[in-house]
């Protein structure tokens, strides 16, 4: 028995060590690493980068998905574990820099400029201009509730907030600038209850009636699917989260063909288009690769 156990363990060890050897792509190029967070849009962007790179160059791209959040992706870029990722401009306000380095603003351009300069230097990477879609926090409620009570703006919601349960991701409640505390200060009301959870579940919660209000991300297709209404941010509280690709400088300096592809993705996808792509994946349950390929073919890029 013992022999079998040690034998199979050794076999396993061997299997892994051989599998982890230094690799190069089938055509003799490099294998680059793309890291994606838990949400669907960076996963789609990963496939788009992968398809374009593998179509136009001899290199390959390997995608790692479901990293909990952007800070962990940045850490991995810092350690050289990821070469590319999709990040959001508003991330620059999230506790990465001292208060004297960064000036809080809800202006998209100021935010992007700061993200490009500060993160670019901190992690030795290039932060591209926006891909064209924005995935910022917003407050969403059920459309019929909004129409019944004539709620158009976030200020309007104040009259009902006491009886409503808010569902949000785990960090929004604790965020300093653009979190719940700041929201209460700006809009002058708080919700009856506020619960943190995995983002995907937040939508199931509002669909099933467990929740009344969610901090939806503007690009999410569930807003369409569950007939939610995004309220107007009349006090300009939420900072922009414009999506950009990022790449390690080392990689784009050495491989100009990669830099060219990443450049071409700037301005490629609008928020509406990304929502449609995500609808195919999240709601229709189609594979991310298939959806990304179809999109690129339609645009004549593949």
């Amino acid at each position: 028995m013992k022999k079998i156990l040690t034998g199979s363990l050794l076999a396993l060890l061997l299997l892994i060590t051989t599998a982890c050897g230094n690799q190069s792509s089938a055509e003799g190029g490099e294998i680059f690493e793309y890291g994606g967070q838990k949400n669907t849009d960076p996963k789609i962007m990963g496939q788009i980068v992968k398809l374009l790179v593998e179509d136009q160059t001899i290199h390959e791209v390997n995608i790692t998905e479901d990293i909990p959040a952007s800070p962990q992706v940045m850490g991995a870029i810092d350690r050289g574990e990821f070469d590319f990722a999709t990040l959001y401009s508003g991330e620059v306000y999230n506790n990465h820099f001292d208060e004297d380095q960064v000036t809080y603003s809800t202006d998209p351009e100021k935010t992007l400029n700061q993200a490009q300069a500060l993160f670019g230097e901190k992690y030795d990477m290039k932060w591209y201009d926006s891909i064209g879609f924005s995935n910022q926090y917003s407050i969403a409620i059920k459309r019929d509730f909004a129409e019944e009570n004539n709620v158009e703006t976030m200020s309007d919601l104040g009259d009902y907030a006491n009886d409503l349960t808010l569902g949000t991701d785990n960090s929004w409640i604790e965020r300093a600038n653009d979190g719940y505390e700041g929201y209460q200060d700006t809009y002058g009301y708080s919700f009856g209850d506020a619960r943190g959870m995995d983002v995907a579940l937040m939508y199931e919660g509002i669909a099933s009636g467990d929740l009344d209000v969610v901090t939806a991300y503007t690009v999410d297709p569930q807003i369409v699917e569950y007939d939610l209404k995004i309220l107007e941010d009349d006090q300009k509280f939420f900072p922009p989260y414009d999506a950009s690709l990022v790449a390690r400088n080392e990689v784009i300096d050495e491989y100009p063909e990669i830099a060219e592809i990443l450049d071409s993705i700037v301005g490629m996808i609008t928020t509406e288009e990304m929502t449609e792509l995500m609808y195919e994946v999240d709601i229709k349950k189609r594979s991310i690769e298939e959806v990304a390929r179809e999109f690129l073919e339609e645009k004549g890029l593949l």
Partner: protein
Amino acid sequence: MELITDYIAFWQDKYDSILTYTYEHLVISFVVILLSIIVTVPLAIYMTKMKNEKIKNLIFNIANVFQTIPTVALLAIMIPLLGIGFIPSITALFLYALLPLLRNTYTGIKSIDPSIVEAAKGMGFSTFGRLFKIELPAALPYVMSGIRVTTVYIISWTTLAALIGGGGLGDLVLAGIGYNDKHMIFTGTILAIVIALILDLIFGKFEKKFSKA
């Protein structure tokens, strides 16, 4: 030094919400533990009187399967069935607590010397009298040690409830992960450990008391 002052500032800033998370964590854990005691202890007693070995094994096997389902998976499976929030969190954790409690109570009562039971029968104790006067007190140390082990695990697992909107210290850990704040991650972790250790200590004292008695 700066680390410490930073950390103190963090507590001053957040102690309100830290207390809330701790409170939620305790509520979830205690409800789970109470529920599982209410269900398991009578079940285990009933099982010691059961003649049908097959059904007995079946119950043990079912409880065992629940314990082998990965925690994340069990929580995820709960969502389509029970939605999000407090109830599915409690349910999932309750299923985990079943086996250790069931096993310990069962072994506890089974381990009582049959001669004592026989003697009690001879003295004219009824079944219930025997149960409450002799068998349960004798099994108590086992039950307590089951409760102790289970409690410690439940405290640790409750952090995962934050994934499905159950609240608790997991919220703080996950917020730290999402918001790039190590203070939050460490605070959530350390508080969960401290609570588990304190409860372990308290239950350990009880256990000793009962086993001496």
